[in-house]
């Protein structure tokens, strides 16, 4: 098991750095290109939500990302100190609607759920914790 950790200010421009960090760990875990892309999207959407909805803007806190790369499995642990967030309270977006009714809100969490094997959320000691798991073999 290889473990790594990154702490960055909660800014949109830092999300690329977080993605690069996760890609490196995903390669260590032996994930294929598609799975690595899915990890990037999930982490990107998670961090975007933290900045936009959690902190309510940039530079209001930090994002901590820890990766544990095992054989064929990557666990990504994302923590923030933003306001409490209830993942379960977010409804699934209504897809394939007419253009006038189409909004792109709620897609981030939907993408996480679709692209990762496990998505879990908890809050402890004033911090939100999102754990994403991706395994090598999927579908």
């Amino acid at each position, binding site marked *: 098991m290889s473990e790594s950790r990154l702490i960055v200010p909660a800014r*949109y*421009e830092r*999300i*690329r750095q977080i*993605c690069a960090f996760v890609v490196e760990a995903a390669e260590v875990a032996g994930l294929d290109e598609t799975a690595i*892309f899915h990890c*990037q*999207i999930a982490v*990107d*959407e998670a961090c*975007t939500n933290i*900045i*936009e909805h959690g902190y309510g803007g940039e530079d209001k806190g930090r994002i901590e990302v820890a990766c544990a790369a095992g054989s064929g499995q990557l666990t990504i642990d994302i923590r923030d100190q933003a306001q409490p967030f209830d993942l379960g309270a977010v409804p699934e*977006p209504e*897809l*394939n*609607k*007419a*253009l*006038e009714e*189409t*909004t*792109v809100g709620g*897609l*981030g969490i*939907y*993408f996480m759920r*679709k*692209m990762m094997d496990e998505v879990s959320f908890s809050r402890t000691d004033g911090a939100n914790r999102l754990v994403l798991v991706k395994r090598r073999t999927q579908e």
Partner: protein
Amino acid sequence: MDISTQEIKRAMVMTVKGRVDSATAPDLENALKQLVDGEKAQIVLDLNDVEYMSSAGLRAMVSTLKAVKRINGDLRLCAPSPRVAEVLRLAGLTSIFNLYPTQAEAVDSF
């Protein structure tokens, strides 16, 4: 992310290269908005060199599509990579965008 725009036949073709994420999507949306504000209503967005797109990019495209439809135009997409095509499909957006395999086909559709 790099953006370039050129007029080809009856369409404005915007070519995007690189990553479209929450840091860069506002630039894409602004560039598209400038076309719509200038009443350039027949727009082709060439996604051939977009290696990555998150929901922030999708949001920019959907808001532009809504704006351009109001002036009787259209935003047509072409040549998405398999990754971008997957994101579009998962988001349920393949039914609201006209999607073409090549830039030439998208341009000629206007």
